[in-house]
């Protein structure tokens, strides 16, 4: 009567090996990065220069000591931090603000939402070049031309060390704030309506509801956006490479750009890799903290 099939006994579901079997394929694809990464870290302890691939000698921590002593390193460190922190914060604020505006349906909201991610669709290096045309120092630049109409003198934007970093942050925000808007929109839609209705009944103000209800409920979004955006903005390269290349007098030289000069332009792979390893380490500790915060937020 029953179609019981007796088969070799194996531990009942799920088999012990199944989880590893499933994650293994993805691991192989990413093992490909382990060898280059380890080799890169090894280079930081050598005097490897590209033009002399033959004689690589071990120099221990000489590269690190030398670089940590140099002022250029700490300047690049500072620029990287200022760029990443301000880019992420503005993207969070802008992302949340726009998401709140787009949350409720109104005529045309669907069109606006589909136009939302167009800036992300253009290769960053190309949008940086296009922005460079818009930010041209003379009144030939579109932005200066428009500002000129309202009587503001042309600003040198990417050409002046005071405004160069600000312009780069502006470009980064332009490209990646849609990412934040998307995540927040998803988050806002998954928040139940009841708490808001209850709060309204108690006569809570919009600001109170935002602070006490929306923000706490959106914490996972905030952590998620910060996690992915912080990693990318610490490692920013395309945007600066296409415009100022670390331009006016080191004002926009981040760790990644400085490593580009050291390793690719001046062939000093050993030193270049030190900058990159520091950058990797920064990403590591921030993500470790953020992902722990993420699991904690999830459980609560």
């Amino acid at each position, binding site marked *: 009567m029953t179609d019981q099939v007796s088969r070799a006994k194996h531990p009942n579901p799920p088999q012990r090996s199944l989880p590893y079997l*499933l994650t293994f394929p993805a691991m192989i694809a990413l093992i*490909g990065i382990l060898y280059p*990464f380890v080799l890169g870290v090894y280079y930081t302890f050598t005097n490897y220069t590209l033009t002399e691939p033959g004689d690589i000698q071990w120099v221990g921590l000489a590269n690190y000591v030398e670089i940590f002593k140099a002022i250029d390193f700490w300047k690049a460190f500072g620029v990287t931090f200022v760029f990443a922190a301000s880019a992420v914060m503005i993207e969070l604020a802008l992302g949340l603000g726009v998401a709140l*505006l787009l949350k409720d349906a109104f005529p045309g909201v669907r069109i606006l939402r589909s136009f939302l991610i167009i800036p992300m669709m253009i290769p960053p290096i190309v949008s940086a070049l296009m922005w460079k045309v818009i930010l041209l120092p003379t009144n030939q630049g579109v932005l200066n031309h428009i500002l000129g109409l309202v009587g503001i003198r042309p600003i040198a934007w990417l050409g002046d060390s005071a405004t160069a970093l600000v312009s780069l942050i502006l470009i980064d925000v332009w490209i990646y704030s849609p990412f934040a808007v998307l995540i927040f929109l998803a988050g806002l839609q998954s928040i139940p309506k009841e708490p808001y209705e209850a709060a309204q009944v108690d006569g809570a103000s919009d600001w109170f509801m935002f602070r006490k209800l929306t923000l706490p409920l959106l914490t996972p979004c905030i952590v*998620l956006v910060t996690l992915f955006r912080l990693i990318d903005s610490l490692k920013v390269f395309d945007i600066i490479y296409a415009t100022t290349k670390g331009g006016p007098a080191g004002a926009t030289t981040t760790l990644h750009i400085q490593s580009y000069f050291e390793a690719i332009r001046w062939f000093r792979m050993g030193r270049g890799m030190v900058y990159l390893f520091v950058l990797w380490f920064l990403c590591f500790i921030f993500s470790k903290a953020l992902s722990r915060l993420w699991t904690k937020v999830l459980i609560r």
Partner: protein
Amino acid sequence: MTTSRPFKRILKALGLGAYFTFALGPVIWIAMMSLKNPNDVIASPPKFVFTPTLENYKIITVGRHAQGVETVRPDYPRYFLNTLIIASATVVVSLLLGTFAAYSLARFSFRFKEDIAFTFLSFRFAPELMIILPLYVVFQKTGLIDSYSGLTAAYQLITLPFLIWVLRGFFEDIPREIEQAARVDGYTWWGVFHRISLPLIKPGIAAVVILSFIFAWNNFIFSMILGGERTQTITLGILGFIGYERVLWGQMAAATMICVIPELILAFLVQNYIIRGLTFGAIKG
């Protein structure tokens, strides 16, 4: 939040207007540049009213160009096809590898689970420059240089970590009892996976496909160093318009507009999924 009071509605309209001018203004400017002839493109002061011409689009697609208008060897359609192949292959491979990994990270509890999950994420930390030269040597020795499969493998480093973390949230979102019911109904874990779990996260897959496609489509360093003449991608194609003589801004702008089309089509196809799609467990809060 009720926006009944007119004051709020004006504020909302102003806010949206400001943001979308900031977001779409440059895109519109690029579109205008793509319709200008060489002298207008970099006129100073910038020209807002001009006689539009489709010359740039003609040059980069069909390759015919009027005399005296300088151009580069128009291989743009080939770069476009290369990128289409590589980006789609990358997304397909990422889906194949990542979906299973995400499912096992979400469903099963096993040793080193959180470490494995974090390792996937950590592959996104390494700056591209750090791994590009050693990776180049590996690709050269294994003959993967300038090949579609080589670039598809390299792009996994960009798309796979993101895909695994997002899909993991989705799988965690499915109530366990639904999968248990399917097992009891007589399906192996594979049957449950592809008949119940996978269809239930279709919105998530849509969101992840479009975002991964964009990341792969826009890549620059991997395609430049690990690719070659046969697999040159669109980003390099667009940069190719920085000629020795001068930058062909008009043609570069036209190339950029065409570059956006496949992503727009894909976004439109999965449009309603994207927002709903990103509503995943982790977001529930």
